[in-house]
């Protein structure tokens, strides 16, 4: 897998598994899970610094930005204005122009507001951001995002944190065939087979958080996800056999008694 690099906007990534840093028990667990997962891109959120209790440690003391690509997100933003504001703050706090853009439509589903997403992406791209949009499994929206300058798209497999796996594999497949940029399946993965399946369908990478952080043993699940993404990617490149309704014998008839 060493020569199988993922390239987005001229940046090269070693791992096709990207991970979030939320919901872990503590920073030590976060650090260990990410290390075991082999991911080199980690997402983070932008929030107010706790000014009353300065004893609280900083995530970036555990996740070295020299070792990992820090991908700030705009999680929790429900308007174009908020998403743009948080993106700008992330850039001011960080070291790069990368942003995982989320404009959420509703609290219950956390589905993206795709109209708002396109609007926010346009503004940010004009300001020089590298926008990786969290979008629906809608091929038309994905195409629009690419047309306005997104160097990759991040469609959901299922609602964030739901663990439902890929709800609409056919839409995802059409989406992957519709765009000529990397597709990173983001959100909804529940277990290793979901990640493998996403890669088998032809996803360029998978991003997950809850599936690892919420597992009974997050460190073990992080390892499972690493191999699932590898296996899925290898299978995709190897090319699976077609599905047939009836049997085809593997052993020859010739030479039988």
């Amino acid at each position, binding site marked *: 897998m060493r020569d199988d690099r993922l390239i987005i906007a001229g940046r090269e990534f070693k791992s096709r598994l990207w991970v979030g840093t939320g919901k872990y028990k503590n920073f030590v667990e976060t650090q260990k899970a990410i290390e075991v997962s082999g991911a080199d891109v980690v997402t983070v959120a932008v929030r107010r610094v706790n*000014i*009353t209790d300065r004893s609280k440690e900083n995530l970036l003391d555990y996740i070295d930005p020299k070792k990992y690509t820090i991908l700030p997100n705009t999680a929790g933003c429900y308007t174009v204005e908020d998403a743009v504001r948080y993106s700008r703050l992330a850039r001011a706090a960080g070291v790069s122009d990368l942003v995982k853009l989320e404009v959420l439509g509703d609290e219950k589903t956390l589905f993206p507001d795709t109209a708002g997403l396109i609007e926010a992406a346009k503004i940010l791209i004009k300001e020089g951001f590298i926008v990786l949009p969290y979008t629906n499994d809608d091929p038309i929206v994905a195409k629009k995002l690419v047309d306005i300058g997104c160097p990759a798209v991040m469609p959901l497999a299922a609602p964030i944190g739901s663990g439902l796996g890929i709800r609409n594999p056919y839409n995802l497949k059409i989406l992957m065939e519709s765009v000529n940029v990397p597709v990173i399946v983001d959100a909804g993965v529940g277990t290793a087979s979901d990640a493998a399946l996403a890669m088998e369908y032809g996803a360029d990478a998978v991003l997950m958080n809850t599936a690892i952080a919420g597992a009974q043993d997050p460190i073990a699940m992080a390892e499972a996800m690493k191999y699932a993404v590898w296996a899925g990617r290898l299978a995709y490149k190897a090319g699976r056999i077609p599905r047939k309704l009836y049997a085809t014998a593997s052993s020859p008839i010739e030479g039988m008694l």
Partner: protein
Amino acid sequence: MQDTIRIQVNGEARDWRRDATVADLLRDLEITSERVAVEVNLEILDRAMFAQRSLKDGDRVEILSFIGGGGESPRRSTDRRKCVHSL
């Protein structure tokens, strides 16, 4: 002229000395200026300006940094051991 000004820092009212800059504020709050973003009255401040921008009475200062997060708002997250079988 009073020696103190009243400012809002991350939503909390604070009395601060009049001649303080943003850099002073961060130092007093024991916040390292690396990897934080500072917004004063909705305007993002370039890091190079921290030592130059002095605080004025009524300023609304927001200091933000990176925290753990995936796709959802961490504030809305549920306990991970609490398994909800809704399906």
